[in-house]
C-alpha cells in the first residue's frame, strides 16, 4: 500500500532529512514510525501527502507512483488519505459537525450522506452529542478526536497520524491508539508517527525507526 524505494530528501540548505529510505507497508497493516525529532518522521509522512517531493528515489501509494502526480492531481490524491495532525488543525470558526464534514463537502457528497457519515464518524470517536460545539470549547483530547473523525469520515484507504498523542495524558493516548487499531481492523492502512516508545511498544505492531534520516529497523514485516 505504501512503498518507499531508496528515497532521499535533501533540503536546499544542504540538510538531509531522509537518506536512502526503503520500506513497504501492506494494506492491512498498522505501523508505527518512531525516532527522535528531526529524524525524518514528518518528512516521510509529508511525502505520502505530497506536501514534499523526494530528491531521489520513488514513493508508490496504492499502486500510484507519486512522481507521476502533477500539481492538479494532488487534491485527488489527498482525498484518499486521512491525516491526523498533532496540533489538530481544526477550523476554529466552525462547529464540530462542519469540521468533520469538510472532506465530504470537498469530495462532493449528497448532504444527507454527509449528515449520516459525519454522525457515524462522530459516534465512532464518542463525540456525537458535541456536534454543535465549537472546537475551542473542547478539551485537547476531544479536539484530537474531532481531527480523527475528520480524517476517517471520507473512508480513506490510508490513515496517517503525526504525533497524535503528543499533548495527551497516558490514558487518553491509549484510547486514541485503540481507535486507530479499530480503523485498522476494518481494512485501513494506518501509519502513526510517534516518539512515545513506552506506549507504542506495548501495542504489538511493526515499528519503523528512523535515525538522522536513515531507516535503522522495521523496513519489512
Amino acid at each position: 500500500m505504501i512503498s518507499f524505494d531508496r528515497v532521499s530528501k535533501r533540503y536546499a540548505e544542504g540538510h538531509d532529512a531522509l537518506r536512502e529510505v526503503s520500506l513497504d507497508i501492506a494494506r492491512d497493516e498498522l505501523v508505527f514510525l518512531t525516532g527522535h525529532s528531526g529524524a525524518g518522521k514528518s518528512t516521510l509522512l509529508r511525502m505520502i501527502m505530497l506536501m514534499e517531493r523526494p530528491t531521489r528515489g520513488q514513493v508508490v501509494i496504492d499502486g500510484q507512483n507519486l512522481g507521476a502526480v502533477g500539481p492538479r492531481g494532488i487534491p485527488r490524491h489527498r482525498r484518499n488519505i486521512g491525516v491526523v495532525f498533532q496540533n489538530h488543525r481544526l477550523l476554529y470558526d466552525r462547529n464540530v459537525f462542519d469540521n468533520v464534514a469538510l472532506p465530504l463537502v470537498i469530495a462532493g457528497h449528497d448532504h444527507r450522506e454527509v449528515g449520516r457519515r459525519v454522525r457515524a464518524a462522530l459516534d465512532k470517536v464518542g463525540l456525537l452529542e458535541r456536534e454543535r460545539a465549537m472546537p475551542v470549547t473542547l478539551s485537547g483530547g476531544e479536539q484530537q478526536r474531532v481531527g480523527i473523525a475528520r480524517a476517517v469520515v471520507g473512508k480513506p484507504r490510508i490513515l496517517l497520524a503525526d504525533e497524535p498523542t503528543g499533548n495527551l495524558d497516558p490514558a487518553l493516548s491509549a484510547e486514541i491508539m485503540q481507535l486507530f487499531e479499530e480503523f485498522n481492523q476494518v481494512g485501513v492502512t494506518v501509519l502513526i508517527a510517534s516518539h512515545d516508545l513506552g506506549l507504542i511498544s506495548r501495542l504489538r505492531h511493526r515499528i519503523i525507526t528512523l535515525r538522522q534520516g536513515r531507516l535503522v529497523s522495521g523496513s519489512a514485516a
Partner: protein
Amino acid sequence: MSFRLLGVRAAQGVRREGASHSRTGLRDRYHAWLQHHRLSAADSMHRVLDNPVSSAMTWLVIGIALALPSGLNVALDNVSQLSASWDSPAQISLFLHDEVSDERALALQAELSARADVSLSRFVSREEALEEFRSLSGFADVLSSLQDNPLPHLVVVAPAADAQQAVVAALRAELEAYPDVAQAVLDMEWLQRLDTMMLLGRRLVWAVAGLLILGVLLILGNTIRLAIESRREEIVIVKLVGGSNAFVRRPFLYTGLWYGVGGGLFAALLVAASLWFLQGSVADLARLYHSEFRLRGLGVMGGLNLIILGGLLGLAGAWLAVSRHLAAIQPR
C-alpha cells in the same frame, strides 16, 4: 446543519461502502459543484455583510470611481440631446453682388424656396439689413453719416431638416456658383466646434473611465488579498484534506463579485442622486429659455449596466488577487 462555506448537496449517489474509498458520479459532482457555488455565494455575502462599515467603504470607493465616468457620460448625453433639439442646425447665408436688384433677389429667393433640399429661404434686403444693424449695433450715428449703404442683399437658406453635414456643404458650394451670389457662408462652424468638443469630452470620459477602472481593480484586488490573508490557516487546512484550487478560489471570487455588484449599485445611486440634485436648477434654466428640456438620467438599463460592470470588475479584481496569492499558500 449550519454549513456556511462548507456544504454540498448532491443527487442520491450510489456509494460503495466498506474498504473501498468513496466514489461520486458525474451527476453528483455537478450537483455538488452547483451546491458549493450556492453556498460559497451565500457565505461570501454573509462575510461581506458581517462587516457593514468596511464593506460600505469598499462599495462607496468603487461606487464613486464608477459614478464619475458614468456621470460625465450622462452629462454628455444630455448636451448632445440638447444640441440635437435645435430646429435648424445649419443655415447658409448668401451674400449677393451689389448690382443685383431687389426684384432679381426676390426671384432668386422664390427659386431657392422651390428646391427640394431647401426647407426655407428668406430675403433680407440691404435696407432692412442696415436698419437691423442700426438698431442692434448702437452705431446708428456712424451709420447715418455713411453716404451709401455698404451692406449687400442677403438670402438666408435653411437646408432640408434631415440633411447630412456633407450634403449641406455640397449645397453651399452649389449656391455659391449662382451668378448673383457673391459669397455663400455656412453658419455651421459653431456646431462643428460643439461636435468636436463633444468628441473630446467622450475621449476624456474614456480616459478617466480607464484610469478609474484600473483603480477599482487594484482596490478590489487588495481587499480580496486581505480576505485571503485573514483565512490563510483555513485555506491550508482545506488544501490538506484535498480541496482543489477551484474549491478554495470560489468563495473569494464571490466576495469580489459582491463587492463589485454593491459598488455598481452605489454608483447608479450616486448618479441618480446627483441628477436629482441638478434637476431643479436645470428645469428653472430651461423655463427661462422657454425650453421643454429635462435632464435624462441613466435609466433602468444604464443602472443595470453599471451593476453588471461592477460585478465583472469585482470578479476580475478577485481573480487577479486569487491567482497571485492563493497559489503561494501551500501546506507546510
